[in-house]
């Protein structure tokens, strides 16, 4: 039996309990080497717990976890060596210089000084960093700080890189630059694991797993998720003027309407009975500019996560 492609992450029947509370319920999934894998879900869905297990920070209650061919049987330290972790909120110390941050990370990771020197040069070249190494992190602009964070989190050359909402708060230009770096890393065979509430970031992923109350409720590429969740296009209603709130209520209570939600200045309408649309569209035409649009990942997220409770 051949073993190609090698999976970077293999999770089978993973369950994590905290006392009586089941944070993760019997989930199974695999991530291929070189994949950019998105991990989405509402706050409290079990994402962080799953990642803590994959980073070697939390023992599973039951089930098997393999991270870059290492299992928990080989010890937590063996898993930790394979993973890097970067969070938008905290990876670097603001009061330390870049040099000091890297030296600190290196000592935590037990990286020999000659390796540190080599990796520092490689990574700073990779992110195109040109400021002096003794610059304090707090003096770096947000976008640069984020790239330096990425460099620090992969100093020990891990196989798998976990990114926690990595580009929230930076300029769209810096975000595009960051994702170019991530894609390069994936191309070089690193596996990228992204958790985010930012649908723009989720769009960049090859596949996305969506979690709800401890379970994976969907797992597919962004485009397929959109297609399977919404076989029909979504109807966008762009108000021509001020819309009476009764009209929206009326639409919401219409039996042929599945849902109507506000999206910024516009509304997204999903029909239950598409036959009825021909009539309805004429009725509301005086109030809205009507367009059929492809669903966004936010539409998918809201539909799948809220779907059952509605």
């Amino acid at each position, binding site marked *: 039996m051949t073993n190609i492609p090698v999976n970077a992450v293999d999770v089978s029947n993973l369950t994590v309990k905290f006392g009586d509370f089941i944070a993760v319920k019997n989930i199974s999934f695999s991530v291929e080497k070189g994949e950019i894998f998105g991990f989405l*879900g*509402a*706050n*409290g869905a079990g994402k962080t717990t799953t990642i803590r297990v994959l980073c070697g920070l939390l023992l599973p209650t039951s089930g098997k976890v393999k991270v870059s061919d290492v299992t928990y049987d080989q010890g937590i330290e063996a898993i930790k060596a394979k993973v890097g972790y970067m969070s938008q*909120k905290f990876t670097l110390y603001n009061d330390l210089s870049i040099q000091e941050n890297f030296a600190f990370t290196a000592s935590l990771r037990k990286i020999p000084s000659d390796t540190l020197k080599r990796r520092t040069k490689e990574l700073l070249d990779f992110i195109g960093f040109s400021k002096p190494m003794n610059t304090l992190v707090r*003096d770096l*602009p*947000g*976008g640069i700080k984020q790239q330096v964070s990425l460099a620090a989190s992969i100093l020990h050359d891990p196989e798998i890189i976990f990114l926690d*909402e990595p580009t*929230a*708060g*930076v*300029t*769209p*230009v*810096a975000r*595009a630059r960051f994702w170019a770096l991530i894609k390069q890393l994936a191309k070089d065979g690193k596996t990228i694991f992204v958790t985010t*509430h*930012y*649908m*723009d970031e989720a769009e960049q992923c090859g596949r996305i797993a969506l979690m709800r109350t401890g379970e994976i409720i969907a797992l597919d590429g962004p485009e397929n998720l959109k297609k399977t969740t919404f076989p029909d296009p979504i109807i966008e209603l762009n108000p021509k003027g001020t819309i009476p709130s009764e009209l929206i209520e009326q639409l919401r209570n219409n039996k042929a309407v599945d849902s109507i*939600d*506000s*999206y*910024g*200045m*516009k509304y997204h309408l999903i029909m239950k009975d598409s036959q009825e649309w021909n009539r309805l569209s004429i009725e509301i035409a005086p109030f809205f500019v009507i367009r059929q649009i492809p669903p966004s990942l*936010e539409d998918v*997220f*809201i539909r799948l*996560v*809220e779907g059952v409770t509605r």
Partner: protein
Amino acid sequence: MQQMSIGIKINNIKKKLGLNQALDGVSTHFEEGLLHGLIGPEGAGKTTLLRTLLNLLTPDEGTVQFTNHGADIDYNSIRSSIAYMPQQQSLYADLSISEHLDFFRDLYQIPKDVYLKRREELLHITRLDKFIDRPAGKLSGGMYKKLGLMCALLQSPAAILLDEPTNGVDPISRREFWDLLHRLSKENILIIFATAYMDEAERCDRVHILSTGSLIAEGTPRGVLERENVESYDALFIKRAAEGVL
């Protein structure tokens, strides 16, 4: 009870924090009763501007003028009518939702009958009424932010300034939070909402786009996009960067 209506005009505000020119000559108008979005990436000057409006920071240059029904008004006469929800909120992990509300009633010295009515109203619109006994430390991210908002709204403010309340909150909770703000906005409250999420621009009545201490665009969400001839606020930043402005 109160028919106060607050607007804020600022003129050429400059503020240096350490070596950083956090605000570099910002002039704008926050109109009475509207929902204003202060939109920009980290380091744009959003928090500094909010804190300047609240008189928590004194600007190096420039003026802040409050209005009530169009007439200039002294800040000190209305400061208790302005609520502020900072980025890092001082809620108490061990206190329940109910205890928080009681605590803030004491702080604001709200009469009991007024308090009970307001409390019921807020618990209803935030849909937190089923969770009143849950400690703040055990609330989800979105619920925690809603509790913070409730505490800020307890004194029925005429204006509320919110510093990135939707940061790190999942899309569903974010949407609920915005629905809540739109409800509030109908009560003629001035809302100033700081965010780094560009897509939230579209949910505001007026947007003010900040970058490295300066306003790079402002107006109605649609007006700005049309005037700049771009599809989205992301695209606006990319265009400005290409023009060498950023």
